[in-house]
């Protein structure tokens, strides 16, 4: 277990470093960071000054080395917009994102599992058809659009929730639900599918033959098998929510997290702050991957630590 974790951790560090190398290559080699950051009316002197300030006048490999070493030390440079360390800005904006992601993800997984289990118990029935339709809608509707439609309907029309911003729990409801909707859809479809497989599996049929109650069969025997598939998908969903959904939903609702910050930084041409957000999200993504792998290994005795690479 210890050796396995160590191996996974070193892989994770490699992933984060390669994300940062990609960001570096894109910003320094394909793009022109100085041109992006400077206003249109900037002079040659402004340009030279900023280049020197950012160390862009030095050899490219030296820049790459410094960039990676600094990133490993959690030093991404000063945000041009806020004029203080970019990491400080990101860490300050991280808690709202974590609250939103936790709420949206919990909503998505809980509702998704319930819908999946209930519809998987009687495939083809009307409950099942309704659930599958709902699941399909969840994965087909664009999140930013649902977010705006909810604002039109629930905030403007019914006046139940504020249109945007943060504060009490009433600010959290709409963004969390919108963030969780695709999760509900996918988790429901996957849970349903593996539920049907499990209920048809021999060990479950044996249990039925032994006279185990239906409730117990569904909740204990079938859920155990279906749970593994659900956890794998849930890990993917959490990553999607963090690295994609949160940016979109935070922007729609002006939720002051790191996704909204990234969009503000892009508008203000603050590449350094954007890089810091990418860095922190990359770290969270690899951490989730490790947690999912470990959970998976613990739940499924057929998977051995040394076999997972």
């Amino acid at each position, binding site marked *: 277990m210890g050796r396995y974790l160590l191996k996974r951790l070193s892989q*994770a560090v*490699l*992933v984060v470093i390669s*994300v940062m190398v*990609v960001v570096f290559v*894109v*910003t320094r080699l*394909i*793009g022109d960071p100085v041109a*992006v950051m400077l206003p249109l009316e900037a002079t040659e002197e402004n340009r030279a000054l900023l280049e020197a300030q950012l160390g862009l006048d030095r050899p490219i490999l030296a820049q790459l080395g410094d960039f990676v070493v600094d990133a490993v030390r959690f030093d991404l440079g000063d945000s041009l917009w806020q004029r203080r360390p970019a990491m400080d800005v990101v860490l300050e904006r991280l808690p709202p994102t974590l609250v939103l992601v936790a709420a949206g993800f919990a909503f998505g997984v809980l509702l998704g599992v319930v819908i999946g289990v209930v519809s998987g118990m009687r*495939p*083809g029935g009307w409950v*099942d058809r309704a659930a*599958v339709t709902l*699941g*399909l*809608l969840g*994965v*087909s*509707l*664009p*999140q*930013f*659009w649902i977010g*705006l*439609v909810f*604002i*039109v309907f629930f905030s*403007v029309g019914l006046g139940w929730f504020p249109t945007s911003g943060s504060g009490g729990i009433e600010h959290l409801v709409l963004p969390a639900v919108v963030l969780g909707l*695709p999760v509900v859809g*996918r988790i429901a*479809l*996957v849970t*349903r*599918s593996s539920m*049907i497989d499990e209920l048809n599996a021999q060990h479950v049929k044996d249990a039925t033959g032994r006279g185990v109650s239906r409730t117990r069969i569904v909740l204990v025997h079938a859920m155990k098998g279906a749970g593994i598939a659900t956890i*794998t*998908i849930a890990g*993917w*969903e959490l*990553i*999607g929510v*963090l*690295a*994609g*959904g949160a*940016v*979109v939903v935070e*922007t729609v609702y002006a939720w002051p997290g790191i996704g909204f910050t*990234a*969009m503000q930084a*892009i*508008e203000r041409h603050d*590449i350094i702050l*954007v*890089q810091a957000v*990418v860095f922190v*999200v*990359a770290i969270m*993504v690899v951490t989730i991957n490790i947690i999912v792998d470990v959970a998976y290994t613990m739940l499924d005795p057929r998977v051995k630590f040394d076999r997972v690479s």
Partner: protein
Amino acid sequence: MNSVSSGSRSERRASAGRLMRIVRDPTALFGVLVLALLVSAALFAPLIAPLDPNKQDLAARLLPPFYAEGGSSQHLLGTDQLGRDVLSRIVHGARISLTIPLVSVTLAGVFGTAVGLLAGYRGGKADAFIMRIVDTLFSFPGLLLALTILAVVGPSFWTLAIVLSLRIWMVFARMTRGLVLSAREAEYVEAAALVGASPVRIMLRHIAPNLTAPLLTLAVLESAHVILSEAALSFLGLGIQPPQTSWGLDVAIGRQYVFSAPWLIIFPGLAIAVAVLGINLLAGWLRVAADPQESAKRFAAAADAPSAWSG
């Protein structure tokens, strides 16, 4: 998904039977009809659209749709803040919103399949190396990285198409590799190798037929993902740029008028939703049709394939 067959005549007959079955499956039929409608809208946009999508008419600004008070049959879905016809913009928007997935999925599919074939057939160190890269890319923070790249490189049709294909080629590589590995172990493939068939012949004659159905299903499914990503990126201002039109871009424009003119966001968004739903229904049906085991679950649709994806 892993059903191995040699692509024989009986399979071809089965696929003709499948075409008949799509007519009998109402959800799949719905998906196909919706897609046919949208594709013809894209192909014949200038003929179908009632007005020029970029023609401004400041006298007719922010007119509501036909069903609302003040709406007219001249602008069925109303007009935007510059007096442009919303319906015409949606019809024309279909062109870009459907071309982007076509281009991105083709690029990603061709490249990913080639890489997957190489890894699966070569095996050994080449396979280990390629799959390590693929695994690493799966751990990349998808949409956020795409945003960063587009912000630096500058958004345009082609940068958008390429960035989106960079996000999904690994899915094709991974699936192709898996299919090649399982097909290689099939007895008829081993038999072909024993009687001295060349690797190229084995690849094309015996392994490739097993790849087409699952890879096509995957391509359909991934195009739904690409439509959603293009829409999200265009909505965030880093996708399609004016004067080009796309559904996501139109929602972004309408956002400023969300309180006074909600139809500006509702209809373009509905177009995205209907397109993605149609594709998901078709992909779900394709998967079920290709796999008899799945037929029992029938309704169990596409979306549970893990992907590098969300948003």
